[in-house]
């Protein structure tokens, strides 16, 4: 690819940022895709609805490219509400909500998940603890339950000698999860909150917090670049932005054409150059026979004869 770019221009080219390519950030973002936590299933239905909106476009791409998956998705989405209904009926979407949901997932789901944990509590037997985003390990819970039982046993006084076996663990005991689960962390204000408060520094910190700049410097850089577009997104200047975008697209198209022209021009220059070297008329001819002789006049002077 590099050989296609013009050379010899000390102030231009890719290395000087003259290419507004759209895939740069996207491709770099691909390396960050794995760092995101899974979104909640409650948003999946809405997402599938979005697939419906793009169904005709998928059909188009599928038919042109021969991609059967896209074609079939498009066909199904063509039926009103089809893909969402199918996803639900075929259980493509997980019925169990997951913790750590995005889009403002309520604590109710987390509480529900907690109440049906391995402790064996029925949802109605104990109040749901208000734990947000806590990742409770069932194995750990079991050991905690055992610990609590043993602790209660120890409090009850000395063990009678006739009690040879430990009492069975009561699965339905009202264990206070709050004493075993660490208190929820107090999160610093997020990107949006900081932005609303006009605290740009905190907003920038929040924007970059998801990416580790040490392990993923490009990701951190891309996140830094994305802060402004998101701020624009939040500001609601849609009409003006659309106009600017159209201008940008026009500029990009123009730049693409210009780049192609430059590449073609450089190729022509190289071709002419190579052709010129083989047919260069310097006004002198080389006589090999003279070179083979004593060359009394020196290599150059002896080899070059006037035409």
């Amino acid at each position, binding site marked *: 690819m590099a050989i296609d770019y013009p050379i010899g221009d000390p102030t231009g080219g*890719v290395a000087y*940022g003259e290419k*507004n*390519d*759209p*895939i*740069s*950030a*996207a*491709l*770099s*973002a*691909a*390396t960050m*895709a794995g760092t*995101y936590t899974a*979104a909640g299933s409650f948003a*999946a239905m809405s*997402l599938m*609805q*979005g697939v419906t*909106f*793009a169904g005709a*476009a*998928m059909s*188009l*791409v*599928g*038919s*042109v*490219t021969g*991609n*059967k*998956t896209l074609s079939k998705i498009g066909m*199904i989405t063509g039926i009103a*509400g*089809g893909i969402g209904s*199918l996803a639900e009926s*075929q259980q*493509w*979407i*997980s019925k169990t909500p997951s913790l750590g949901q*995005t889009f403002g997932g309520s604590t109710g789901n987390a509480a529900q998940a907690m109440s049906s944990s391995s402790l064996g509590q029925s949802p109605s037997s104990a109040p749901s603890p208000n734990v947000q985003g806590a990742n409770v390990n069932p194995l750990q819970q079991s050991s905690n339950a055992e610990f609590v039982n043993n602790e209660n046993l120890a409090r009850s006084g000395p063990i009678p000698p006739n009690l040879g076996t430990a009492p069975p663990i009561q699965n339905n005991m009202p264990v206070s999860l709050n004493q075993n689960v660490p208190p929820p962390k107090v999160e610093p204000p997020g990107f*949006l909150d900081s932005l609303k408060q006009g605290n740009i520094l905190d907003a920038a910190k929040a924007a970059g917090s*998801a990416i580790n700049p040490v392990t993923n410097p490009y990701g951190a850089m*891309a996140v830094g670049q*994305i802060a402004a*577009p998101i701020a*624009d*997104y*939040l500001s*609601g200047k*849609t009409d003006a*932005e659309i106009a600017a975008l159209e201008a940008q*697209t026009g500029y*990009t198209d123009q730049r*693409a*054409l210009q780049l*192609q022209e430059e*590449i073609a021009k450089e190729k022509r220059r190289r071709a002419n150059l190579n052709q010129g070297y083989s047919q260069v008329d310097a006004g002198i001819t080389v006589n090999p026979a003279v070179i083979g002789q004593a060359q009394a006049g020196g290599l150059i002077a002896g080899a070059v004869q006037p035409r």
Partner: protein
Amino acid sequence: MAIIQDKMARPQGDDINADTVKENIKMPPELQNAYERVVIAGMKVMFSKQSHKLMLEELQKEGPLGEKLGKGVAGLMLLLIKQSNGTMPPEVIIPAGVNLLSQAADFIRKTKLEKITNADIGDAMETMITTILDKFDVNTEKMKQMLDQYSSENIPTGMGA
């Protein structure tokens, strides 16, 4: 159904055009504004002058172009979702991603950064959609298996048509 078939009736070999793809994305009025904003934000990121070095490095990596492009746009959408602090309606994610991907494909073709074919674009779109759906706990393997059972003559019925 007939309408869809008409839309699909394009001669094989046509280049997929971003404008045509955009025209075939039909957003409801209440989501149109959010959709446009997301597309604008995504395009601003994609067209950033500062990002060219990343592209060179990423494109030189091993792997099919369609896969790299699809995962790239999916990553971009996830980045937008994350940084919007949950204000982005989930309904606009896939349509905006399809739009942005077609824009990126258009640009690659125009600049000849890479030789991109229609098949690459199809693969990229499929990769992007499945990557995003995976992140939202949608079982894409199950979805593909189910789709494979259907042909154009075997559209499931009773789905609210």
